[in-house]
């Protein structure tokens, strides 16, 4: 067996890279859901982010514009969702599903001319350190800036929700929009902001896929990661840190089972492919057993339409 220490380091590094889109999208969706809005359009927003990022990179040849543009495209498409659910008071679930279907279709149409174009190399940081330090090198160094941001994000999100005034307002709106409104909080505005932030993070998650992880455009390249991100938020009981754990487990088992398939374990391939989903759910359910904590973290008004009395 070639399972030496440096190989494990490289393996962990690749697991981290594969979990970045999940962390980004789930952290964004977590904020949206904490404000009481259930946006099932994560997959759609991600794929739109992926194609806009890639297209902008090809057109402008500038990665910075591509990244910012992908986030903006996420904001714009989530604005549609926000307008429908917050201003026109449509049902969250139906609108979110429509957003996903719309996003997948639109991205396929926009992406037609970009199929087969090679991507650009995304700059990685500390590449010299990656090579020189065994084991820790490939784990800690040689990643893109987006990865470092993604791994900081759950902690920032946690800090935002628990320690800042704005985070408190978001939680209050998710707990009881009526009370919040009676306290003079502009519920609709807060929810709009949370929706748009979620859109930006989903757009970035998509761009990570098409610009960094597998730098090219393939139709439907998000491949259900948006749905996994949504499930992570719920199974992590709206706790950012548990989202990070869940994303790593999912990413980890996805990579490991690929290696297992390659090595030729005598386990049905279908079972191995199902393993990441299964294990993520089991682990998150086990670490989230405290029903009291769940109650305190769950946004009570999730998915409910808020009418302001006139």
């Amino acid at each position, binding site marked *: 067996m070639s399972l030496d220490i440096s190989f494990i380091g490289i393996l962990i590094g690749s697991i981290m890279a594969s979990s970045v889109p999940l962390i980004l999208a789930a952290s964004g969706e977590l904020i949206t859901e904490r404000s009481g809005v259930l946006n099932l359009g994560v997959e759609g927003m991600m794929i739109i982010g992926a194609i806009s990022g890639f297209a902008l990179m090809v057109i402008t040849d500038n990665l910075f514009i591509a990244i910012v543009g992908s986030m903006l495209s996420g904001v714009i498409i989530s604005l549609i969702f926000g307008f429908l659910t917050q201003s026109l008071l449509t049902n969250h679930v139906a609108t979110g599903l429509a957003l996903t279907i719309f996003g997948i279709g639109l991205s396929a149409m926009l992406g037609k001319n970009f199929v087969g174009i090679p991507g650009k190399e995304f700059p990685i940081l500390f590449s010299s350190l990656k090579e020189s330090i065994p084991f820790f090198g490939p784990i800690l160094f040689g990643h893109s800036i987006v990865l470092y941001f993604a791994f900081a994000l759950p902690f920032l999100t946690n800090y935002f929700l628990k320690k800042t*005034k704005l985070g408190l*307002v978001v939680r209050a709106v998710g*707990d009881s929009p009526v*009370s919040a409104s*009676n*306290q*003079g*909080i502009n519920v609709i505005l807060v929810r709009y902001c949370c929706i748009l932030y979620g859109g930006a993070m989903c757009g970035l998650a998509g761009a990570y896929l098409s610009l960094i992880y597998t730098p090219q455009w393939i139709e439907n390249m998000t491949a259900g990661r948006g749905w996994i991100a949504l499930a992570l938020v719920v199974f992590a009981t709206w706790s950012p840190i548990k989202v990070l754990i869940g994303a790593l487990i999912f990413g980890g088992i996805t990579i490991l089972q690929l290696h297992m398939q390659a090595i030729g374990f005598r386990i049905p391939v279908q079972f191995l492919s199902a393993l990441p989903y299964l294990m993520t759910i089991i682990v998150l359910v086990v670490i989230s057993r405290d029903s*009291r904590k769940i109650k305190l973290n769950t946004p009570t008004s999730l998915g409910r339409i808020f009418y302001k*009395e006139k």
Partner: protein
Amino acid sequence: MATDLRISNISKIYPGCIANDNVSLQFKSGKIYALLGENGAGKSTLVKILSGVISPDNGEVFLNEKNLKLSSPLDAKKNKIGMVFQHFNLFETLSVFENLSIDATEDNKSLRLRINEILKKYNFSIDLDVPVLNLSAGQKQKVEIIRCLLRSPKVLIMDEPTSVLTEQETEELFISLKKFCDEGILIIYITHKLKEVLSLCDEVAVMRKGKVVSVSQTQNERVETLANKMVGQKLAKIKKKINISKNKDEIFKVKHLNFYSDDPFETNLVNLNFSVKKGECLGIAGISGNGQNELFQILSGEIITPDTSIIFRNKEIAKLNPKQRREYLMAFSPEDRISQAAVPELKIYENVALNNFKSSNFFEKGLVNEKKIKEHSKKILSDFSVNTDNVELKSQFLSGGNLQKLILGRELITAPELLICYNPTWGLDVGAINYIHETLIKINDQEKSTILISTDTEELLKLSDRIAVIYKGKLSKIMPSVEVTPEKLGVLMGGGSID
């Protein structure tokens, strides 16, 4: 500084109802004002206008002769109008401190200092760092009051504040309100409880159907005069003949009722044992949230608990579901009329059909026998004086009182041997309450039994033959109601002991 609040010619019209019709009133600091009226009289609309939650179609509000523009709750706050809503405006999953800090402008440290000062000054004891959902209703109300006090209000509006409090908590509240009043805060106290008006307030304005019908000094009023103004007609007094015969058969017997739940919103029940005799009304008192919900659901069969024995008419029914229990002639009237007892979107006759029995033949070969159900529904509507005879009407358009009459009618038309009801007059006006009480007394007169789970002490004393108190899921000993006073109940409901 003296405060003078004047509302002039306020009108608010909703489709199909005039909530406020040209309301003008004047309030001055140093006094406690009562705003009295039945449900739907327009009190809540008026206070929502004062607190900026809704805007009036017409009319103006003046504070110290300054015309206020109250288009959002923020405006009310800025103008130092504080409001404690009947349904608390708190965030259940946030801690007390987070609830208080959400609209504060200062930093957490000095805010905490100020909160502690208020706690000390008014003798409130509340842990600031527990989530609000762990607090009792009385404590939640104190949090609301503190939230208002933090903004040093000129006007404090209390909307039906005692509906969730024990006698003791009510007394404490009154003491605090009088203190606030002495400190120069203008207090407007909204209620439909007449005794509170007389014991607390200096002046009383009575509202009926959106209009102010009288403004007077409370010292010139009595319970009867106020009641008549409020209802607009003379009310008959009801009195029940207490049933104390000891040698009647026990028709219903509960043994070893235990219930354990992980859900922090639910209460555990600990070893409840009680029985009900034929023709008797057993009252179960308690502040809401002490296990009444769970008890009702277990008695009705919505929750099945292991090792509990429930004997009804000499049969063990502990494992039967609600429908099976109904077949044995039990009937249930849950607290929440809209979501538990009836489906608001369904028509009246469809709601009646929900309660089907083998004997009622509402369904034949899997098909709905509409004609039969409608006939049956018509009979309920007329027998229980629901103010419509249109069985096609959607239930959501019935008022609370009429919906409750319909529900009771549906349950009683099968002549059940035992009716279990939970807060049957919750949120109803005096007229409807009277009707429901008469109905419940009639049941006992016909030698049928009732279990009345209620948070309304007065109602329990009026209707029960024996009373027990539930506190934190434990049942006190069962007392003949002639030996029980409101004070005794209050002590037990607050967790005290009377021996």
